[in-house]
């Protein structure tokens, strides 16, 4: 095994309910903006949760007519996010063509809108009428495939599908290909477009979603005593990862270095976190250990912080176990309070938030935290964005299925 290469983030591509593109996303975080509102994409009257974080931005500048028609919304988000990341990195399409660039752009579910529409065709008109485009529009690895096709990037290619840990897992796995010397650059991240009846009904009937329908902007309230579930969001986050020396040589702006990665399983329950966030603790410890960073050196944690009663409690407990007394000294926030929960895209969007926090010296807030749960007693940056320069930051993502992922980032 050769010596591991260093991996840095040089391009950020967020497509989120609070803003599309690096600057719009950063400004919205600083302002503590909520992207949550009543669902407009379909009539949600039969579903308990009638609110979501929809992407309102017009995607047509990035997609030609055929792409707009032929690609599920989940892939459209991924391509816009990839274009934004590429543009932000200062690299050209020619630079990312060929075998030294790869892609891992996952999704928790895949093309849910297509799935629902074609299931209806099958039931109403028979399986013989299902569109030949159904499978290529729906399968979860297609975002990776389209990103690779868009740029002719023939290097390492894979897809992580770990529900709400997808975005974090994708970046961690992609970083390894660069660390191993198998690629110089990777498009990495996650995408999700599940504000459709089939998905909303499913999550709502699990009692996982907030039903604060009369006050959408206050519905995502991680760590608050009155939190009542997560709020569905949609969008994508794609980052351009690059081998450090290559990035430095070309004078790229480096947002952050990917220093450590941890993945683990609760092996406990299909949806409930393990007591005391045991699996989450293991992922956080792995990320610290692979980075060679002590818990006391970490200044900020971008929490999974979904706003469900169970997650926020067990995550807080897990952080206390890993960080001890230092848990009360570091800052923690959940940007899901603003964006809602983008499922497979969440970890990637949050990695972008962390990269910006490290690069700009501003930590994003947890909004709507007005009445803290007594058992959630850490510093969640509830008073608004904070000017603070930290050297090391952690980002957590936990998934149904008990899969946990954590990334450790460092400032360069």
């Amino acid at each position: 095994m050769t010596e591991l290469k260093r991996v840095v983030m040089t391009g950020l591509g967020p497509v989120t309910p609070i803003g599309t593109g690096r600057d719009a996303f950063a400004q919205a975080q600083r302002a503590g903006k909520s992207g949550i509102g009543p669902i407009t994409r379909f009539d949600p009257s039969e579903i308990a949760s009638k609110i979501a974080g929809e992407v309102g931005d017009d995607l047509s500048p990035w997609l030609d007519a055929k792409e707009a028609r032929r690609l599920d919304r989940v892939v459209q988000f991924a391509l816009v996010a990839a274009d934004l990341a590429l543009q932000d990195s200062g690299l050209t399409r020619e630079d990312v063509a060929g075998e030294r660039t790869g892609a891992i752009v996952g999704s928790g579910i895949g093309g849910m809108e297509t799935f629902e529409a074609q299931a209806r065709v099958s039931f109403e008109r028979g399986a013989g009428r299902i569109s030949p485009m159904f499978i290529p529009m729906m399968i979860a690895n297609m975002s990776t495939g389209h990103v690779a096709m868009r740029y002719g990037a023939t290097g390492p290619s894979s897809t992580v599908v770990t529900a709400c840990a997808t975005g974090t897992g994708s970046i961690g796995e992609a970083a390894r290909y660069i660390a191993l010397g198998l690629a110089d650059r990777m498009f990495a991240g996650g995408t999700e477009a599940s504000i459709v009846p089939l998905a909303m009904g499913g999550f709502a009937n699990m009692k996982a979603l907030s039903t604060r329908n009369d006050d959408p902007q206050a519905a995502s309230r991680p760590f608050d005593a009155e939190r009542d579930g997560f709020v569905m969001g949609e969008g994508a986050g794609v980052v351009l990862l690059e081998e450090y020396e290559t990035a430095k040589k070309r004078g790229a702006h480096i947002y952050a270095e990917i220093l450590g990665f941890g993945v683990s399983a609760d092996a406990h329950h299909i949806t409930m976190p393990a007591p005391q966030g045991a699996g989450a603790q293991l992922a956080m410890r792995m990320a610290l250990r692979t980075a060679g960073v002590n818990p006391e050196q970490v200044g900020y944690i971008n929490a999974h912080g979904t706003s469900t009663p169970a997650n926020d409690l067990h995550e807080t407990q897990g952080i206390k176990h890993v960080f001890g007394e230092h848990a009360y000294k570091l800052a923690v926030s959940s940007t899901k309070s603003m964006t809602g929960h983008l499922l497979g895209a969440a970890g990637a969007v949050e990695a972008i938030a962390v990269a910006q926090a490290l690069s700009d010296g501003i930590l994003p807030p947890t909004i709507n935290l007005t009445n803290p749960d007594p058992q959630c007693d850490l510093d969640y940056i509830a008073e608004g964005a904070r000017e603070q320069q930290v050297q090391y930051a952690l980002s957590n993502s936990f998934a149904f299925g008990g899969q946990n992922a954590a990334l450790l980032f460092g400032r360069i």
Partner: protein
Amino acid sequence: MAIFDDVKEVIVEKLGADADQVTPEARFVEDLGADSLEIVELVMGLEDKFGLSISDEDAEGIRTVQAAVDYVEKNQ
């Protein structure tokens, strides 16, 4: 002419082709940029529009706009 217009409408919808390009002699693959999956969608679209059932063998022979119009006129 009515059939041509109806066929054209299906082609524009299924292949995303510009209406101007859909001339009688236009070939689906070479001129209108269709791939194999889009050809399947086009054939299914013609079946829906005209209440037809087009066999795979027949579909093989429909390569141009005029061929589609002829097929519909003959089999409708």
